[in-house]
C-alpha cells in the first residue's frame, strides 16, 4: 500500500507541475480552452487519488478548487487577473496540502480555510463539477484489437511519429507521399500537443496526422507503408465511418480569414474545423502517443552506478598507465582494446548522466510561486519570464539550485526592481519583468536572472562597503569590482535589508552554494536598465574533461572548458610590465601571463621555457597560464577536496590519476580573479573563495 501511496505522490508532482503550467498559460488573453480542461483534469486526478487514500483535507480543498475550474471551463466565469491570482494561490495551497499529506504533517489550516472561503464566495454551492468523469479516462490503443476493415468508404489513419523516426533519418513526408499513392487522400495536421516554443524540444515531436484515404484501400496496404518504421510512430487505422471526435486539428481545407482580419486565435483551435467531425461522435481508439515504457528507479541506485563508472574511469587510467610502463603502448591490439574500453566507459557515463539529467523546468516552476509571494510582500507588480526550461542538468544540481535561485529571485524583486511609481516616473511599464533563462553554453549550463530595474546603485554599494570596513575609503575600483562587493560576507545585514530577501542570508551565501556545485556567479548591471546575475554550472559533478599539466614535480588538471589555446610563444610575443609581470601579445590582444608555479608556491623551472595556456573565465576574462608542460587530456573523476582535506585557494577539487597519485584540479576563474593586487579586487576574490 505504501508503494501505491508513494506512486500517487510522485504522480501528484507531475500533475501539480501541469497545473501550474496550465495556470500560467491561462494568464495570456487568448489561452486555449483545452488548457482549462487540462488544469481541471489535474486537480480532479489529485482529488481522485487523495480520496482513495482517505486524505480528506486534500479531497475537500481539491473539490472546491475544481468546482471553480468547472465554472471557468463551462464559460460561467471569466478569468480576470484576480481570478487567475486566486487560482495560483489555490494551486500553491494544493501543492502544500499534497506535501503535508506526503510527510504526514499538518498543513496550515487557517490558510486553507481562508482560501476555501474565497473559493466558496465565488461558487454557487449547488453547482458541483458538472461531469467529473469527464474525458480523461485513458484509452490505450491496441493494434491487435483493431477490427477487420471493410474498405467501403476508405480508411482513416492517425499517425504520430516519435523522435526515433527522425533520428533514424526518416521523414513523415515520405510516409505521407506513400499514402497518397494508395488513393485520394485528405491530410490534416494535428498540432494540439505542440507546446509553445519555450517548452518545445525537437526531441519530443508532437505533430500528428489524420489522413483519410478514399477508395478500396486495405489496412494491409497502409501497414505496408509503415513496415519499416512501425516502431517509430504511433499508428491507428479505422474505417472512415469511425472517424474520431476531435476539436484540435488544423485542416488544410479550411478557409481562414486573412491575417489582417483574423481575430487572435487560440493556438490549436485556429479555425472552426469544417472538416472535423462532430464532437459527440463515439470516440474511436485514440492514437495517443506511446510515451515509451518507463520505470521508476531509486536515485541511490543511479548514484551507485555513477560512482562505479567513476571508479571505472580511474581504473581505465591506471590500466593505461600500466600498459605504458610495460612498453605495450605501441601494440596496435592493445591500443585498439584500450580505446574501445575508453569509448565504452565514456558511452556508459553519458548514458547514466542522461538518466540523471532533469530539465530545469522543475526548478523554474517553483520560482513562479516565489515570485508571486515576493511580489505580494513588496507590493511590486512583477512578471516572470522563463526561457530554456527544458535545459537539462544533473538531478543533484536541480535540488541544490532551489535555495540560491529562490534567494536571487527575491533579491531581484526586493532590491533590483523599482516600485511601480518610480518605474512610471522613469518611463518604464509599472510591471517589472524578471527573466529566468537557461542554456547550454560551451559545455556548461548558464542560468541567468535578469531584472529590468534600476541597476546596481554603485555609489551606495561602495559607501556601504566602506562603512563596514570591507574596503579602504577611496579605493580605486572599477564598476564590475564594485558589483563584486555584493558578494562579500557581511555586506548585507539584518538591520539594513528588508524582511523579504534579507533573512540573514547574503549573496555571499548564494555564491558559496553555487561554487560548491562547481559553478560561478557573475553580475552585469547597467544603470537604469537592470541587473543580470549569471550562474555558470558544470554539466555534472562527477567527471570533467581535463588537461593534465606539469608544474614542477606536480601534475595538475586544468578543466578543458576553460582552455582556449596552447602555445609556445616567441620572445617577441612577450612583453614585460611592472615588476616581473609579463603580457602575452596574441592575436592583437594583450593577455596577462600568470605563472602557475608561482601561484601555487612550487619550485619554478630554471629556464624561461614552458608552455602558455590561454584560458578564459566564465566572466570572459582571459589570462595565459605558464606551465612546465602538457602531457595528456582525459576525463578525470572529481573528488571533493573540501570534504577530504580543506579549501585550497586556486583549486576546485582533486582527482586520482592512473598511477594512483592525487592531482589537484585547478580553478582558473579564481586564479584570474585574484590576478590584481588591488585591494577591492582582492576582497572580491576572497568573497569568491567563500
Amino acid at each position, binding site marked *: 500500500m505504501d508503494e501505491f501511496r508513494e506512486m500517487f505522490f510522485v504522480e501528484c508532482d507531475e500533475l501539480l507541475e501541469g497545473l501550474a503550467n496550465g495556470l500560467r498559460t491561462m494568464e495570456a488573453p487568448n489561452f486555449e480552452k483545452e488548457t482549462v480542461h487540462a488544469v481541471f483534469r489535474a486537480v480532479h486526478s489529485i482529488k481522485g487519488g487523495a480520496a482513495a487514500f482517505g486524505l480528506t483535507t486534500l479531497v475537500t480543498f481539491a473539490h472546491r478548487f475544481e468546482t471553480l475550474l468547472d465554472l471557468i471551463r463551462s464559460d460561467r466565469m471569466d478569468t480576470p487577473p484576480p481570478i487567475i491570482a486566486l487560482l495560483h494561490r489555490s494551486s500553491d495551497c494544493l501543492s502544500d496540502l499534497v506535501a503535508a499529506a506526503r510527510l504526514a504533517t499538518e498543513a496550515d489550516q487557517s490558510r486553507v480555510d481562508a482560501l476555501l472561503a474565497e473559493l466558496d464566495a465565488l461558487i454557487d454551492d449547488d453547482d458541483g463539477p458538472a461531469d467529473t468523469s469527464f474525458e480523461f479516462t485513458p484509452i490505450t490503443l491496441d493494434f491487435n484489437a483493431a477490427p477487420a476493415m471493410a474498405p467501403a468508404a476508405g480508411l482513416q489513419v492517425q499517425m504520430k511519429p516519435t523522435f526515433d523516426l527522425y533520428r533514424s533519418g526518416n521523414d513523415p*513526408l515520405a510516409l505521407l507521399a506513400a499514402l497518397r499513392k494508395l488513393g485520394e487522400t485528405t491530410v490534416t495536421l494535428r498540432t494540439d500537443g505542440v507546446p509553445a516554443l519555450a517548452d518545445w524540444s525537437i526531441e519530443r515531436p508532437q505533430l500528428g496526422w489524420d489522413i483519410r484515404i478514399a477508395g478500396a484501400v486495405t489496412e494491409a496496404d497502409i501497414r505496408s507503408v509503415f513496415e519499416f518504421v512501425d516502431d517509430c510512430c504511433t499508428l491507428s487505422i479505422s474505417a472512415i465511418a469511425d472517424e474520431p471526435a476531435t476539436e484540435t486539428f488544423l485542416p488544410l481545407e479550411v478557409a481562414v480569414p486573412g491575417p489582417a482580419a483574423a481575430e487572435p*486565435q487560440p493556438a490549436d483551435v485556429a479555425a472552426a474545423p469544417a472538416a472535423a467531425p462532430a464532437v459527440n461522435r463515439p470516440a474511436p481508439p485514440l492514437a495517443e502517443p506511446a510515451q515509451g515504457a518507463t520505470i521508476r528507479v531509486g536515485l541511490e541506485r543511479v548514484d551507485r552506478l555513477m560512482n562505479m563508472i567513476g571508479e571505472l574511469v580511474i581504473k581505465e587510467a591506471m590500466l593505461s598507465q600500466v600498459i605504458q610502463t610495460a612498453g605495450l603502448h605501441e601494440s596496435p591490439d592493445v591500443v585498439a582494446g584500450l580505446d574501445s574500453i575508453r569509448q565504452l566507459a565514456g558511452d556508459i557515463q553519458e548514458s547514466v548522466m542522461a538518466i540523471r539529467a532533469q530539465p530545469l523546468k522543475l526548478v523554474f516552476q517553483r520560482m513562479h510561486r516565489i515570485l508571486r509571494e515576493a511580489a505580494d510582500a513588496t507590493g511590486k507588480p512583477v512578471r516572470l519570464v522563463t526561457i530554456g526550461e527544458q535545459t537539462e542538468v544533473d538531478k543533484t544540481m536541480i535540488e541544490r539550485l532551489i535555495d540560491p535561485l529562490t534567494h536571487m529571485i527575491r533579491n531581484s524583486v526586493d532590491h533590483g526592481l523599482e516600485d511601480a511609481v518610480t518605474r512610471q516616473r522613469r518611463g518604464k511599464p509599472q510591471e517589472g519583468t524578471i527573466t529566468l533563462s537557461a542554456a547550454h553554453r560551451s559545455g556548461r549550463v548558464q542560468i541567468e536572472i535578469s531584472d529590468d530595474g534600476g541597476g546596481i546603485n554603485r555609489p551606495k554599494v561602495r559607501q556601504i562597503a566602506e562603512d563596514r570596513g570591507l574596503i579602504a575609503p577611496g579605493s580605486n575600483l572599477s564598476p564590475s569590482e564594485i558589483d563584486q562587493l555584493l558578494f562579500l560576507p557581511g555586506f548585507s545585514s539584518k538591520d539594513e535589508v528588508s524582511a523579504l530577501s534579507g533573512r540573514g542570508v547574503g549573496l555571499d551565501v548564494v555564491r558559496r552554494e553555487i561554487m560548491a556545485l562547481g559553478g560561478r556567479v557573475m553580475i552585469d548591471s547597467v544603470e537604469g536598465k537592470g541587473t543580470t546575475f549569471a550562474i555558470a554550472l558544470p554539466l555534472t559533478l562527477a567527471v570533467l574533461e581535463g588537461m593534465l599539466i606539469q608544474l614542477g614535480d606536480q601534475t595538475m588538471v586544468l578543466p578543458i572548458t576553460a582552455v582556449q589555446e596552447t602555445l609556445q610563444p616567441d620572445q617577441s610575443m612577450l612583453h614585460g610590465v611592472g615588476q616581473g609581470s609579463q603580457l602575452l601579445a596574441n592575436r592583437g590582444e594583450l593577455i596577462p601571463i600568470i605563472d602557475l608555479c608561482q601561484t601555487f608556491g612550487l619550485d619554478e623551472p630554471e629556464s624561461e621555457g614552458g608552455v602558455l595556456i590561454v584560458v578564459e573565465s566564465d566572466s570572459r576574462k582571459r589570462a595565459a597560464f605558464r606551465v612546465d608542460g602538457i602531457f595528456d587530456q582525459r576525463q578525470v573523476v572529481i573528488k571533493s577536496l573540501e570534504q577530504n582535506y580543506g579549501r585550497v585557494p586556486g583549486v576546485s577539487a582533486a582527482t586520482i590519476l592512473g598511477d594512483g597519485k592525487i592531482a589537484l584540479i585547478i580553478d582558473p576563474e579564481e586564479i584570474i580573479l585574484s590576478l590584481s593586487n588591488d585591494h577591492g579586487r582582492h576582497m572580491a576574490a576572497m568573497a569568491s573563495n567563500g
Partner: protein
Amino acid sequence: MHALPLPETFDRKAVAQFAQTLMDHRGGDAVLDASAVTRMGVPAVELLVAARKQWLVDGHSLRISDASAAFLSTLDDIGVSLDLLHAEAPA
C-alpha cells in the same frame, strides 16, 4: 521590421539552431522570411507551430513572408496552410 531569414536547408540540424534564434527574438513582433527555403522537413514545421503558439502567448505577431515554392509545397504535403502558421497580436 527586420525579417529573420529561414535557413535555406531547413533540416533537423538547422531547426535546432533556428529554435535558439527564435527564442532570442521573443518579446516583439517578428517576420520570418521564407524566400530562401529550398528544402524543409517536418521538424521545421513543428518549430514554426511552436513559435506561433509562443508568439500568441506572448501577445505579439508572427508572420511568414515571401514563402518560396519549396516552403509552400512542403506545407501542402504536410497538410497545413501558411495562414495557420501566423500569429496575430491582440488588437
